């Protein structure tokens, strides 16, 4: 009987610690970033934007770029809704700059959102860059369950490593200064 209780306590400790481990921590600049696997977008424009072909899934290192800015959002989050036009502006600022176009790509991950909900967010704010649904919070947990909106910028190195160059909670405030900051951190210019 006592042994059984002891075993049960052990089991519980094991379960709770494994939950903690699975949760991950927010990414920090300088650290390696997990090579997230995402579904290849069906939309040909988005596919071309990411430099992908075919169907199935892709990982970050396959994206044809040097830097990826990842927006962690939720359709249900009021600040993410407010932020949406600003991120569109950021996207346009990159695309309109011949020195940056093709070197920095933007994508969004809707945490706890279904594909339908991500689609609503995309349509509502006319978001031109690809958004992905993370309904089961798999990425969200990998990223330490950060609050939203959260921005991570990563640099894809030639040796296929992905390094975090920026990781912050909250608004980017202004598109152009933010872009300058990322450009500098990525040593693109």
């Amino acid at each position: 009987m006592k042994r059984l209780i002891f075993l049960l306590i052990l089991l519980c400790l094991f379960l709770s610690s494994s939950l903690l481990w699975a949760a991950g921590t927010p990414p920090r600049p300088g650290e390696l970033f997990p090579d997230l696997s995402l579904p290849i977008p069906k939309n040909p424009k988005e596919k071309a934007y990411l430099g992908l072909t075919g169907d199935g899934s892709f990982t970050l290192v396959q994206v044809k770029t040097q830097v990826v800015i990842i927006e962690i959002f939720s359709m249900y989050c009021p600040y993410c809704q407010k932020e949406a036009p600003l991120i569109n502006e950021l996207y346009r600022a990159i695309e309109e700059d011949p020195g940056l176009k093709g070197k920095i790509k933007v994508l969004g991950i809707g945490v706890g959102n279904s594909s339908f909900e991500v689609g609503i967010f995309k349509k509502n704010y006319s978001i031109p860059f690809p958004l992905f649904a993370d309904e089961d919070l798999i990425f969200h947990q990998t990223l330490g369950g950060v609050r939203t909106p959260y921005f991570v910028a990563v640099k894809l190195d030639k040796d296929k490593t992905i390094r975090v160059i920026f990781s912050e909670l909250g608004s980017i405030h202004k598109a152009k200064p933010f872009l300058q900051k990322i450009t500098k951190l990525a040593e693109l210019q």
Partner: protein
Amino acid sequence: MAGKKTGRLLGALILLALIGTPFKAFGLSEAYQGNIFSVGILKPKDSHLKVKIGDRAPDFTLPAVSGGKITLNHYQGKKNVVLSFVPAAWTPVCSDQWPGYNIVQGLFLEHEAVLLGITVDNLPTLFAWTNQMGKLWFPVLSDFWPHGLVADRYGVLRSDGTAERALIIIDKKGIIRYIDVHDINKRPRLETLVRELEKLEK
């Protein structure tokens, strides 16, 4: 006897493990700046429905945060009505539900539906809480006094005085067409609601 004891102990330990699990998925918007009260994992449902599909929806009049009062029957013959009961202001999942509805006014208009958000909180609390969501296009009603009267009339008042997370669709004739008393710990998917609204027109 020993078996019973072990069973109880096991139950208690599992409960402890669950309570200890941080509630990570909801109320994470920066808009609330750490003001969301952590409720842990709650009993999924804690009430007994007093209405069913096909019933005439019990009428009510409740005060709205924006001022004035809203009476359900006034929509009869004009609009379909979606009642969205949420448990309480400043709690994780609820804080994440209405802001989503706030950007899909078009979907409701398309199906000639109005949305009424209802909680058992008082008006000042609802005012402060919903202000964090941005400007809401739909009325938010306070079922505070007599406490939870409307929630109780529909059978969605929980034993602790909060409401269930429930979606009820009432058609233009005033008849209940859909009821979802959702697991209080989870947010209903938007597409389910949209699909139910689509059914109304058939």
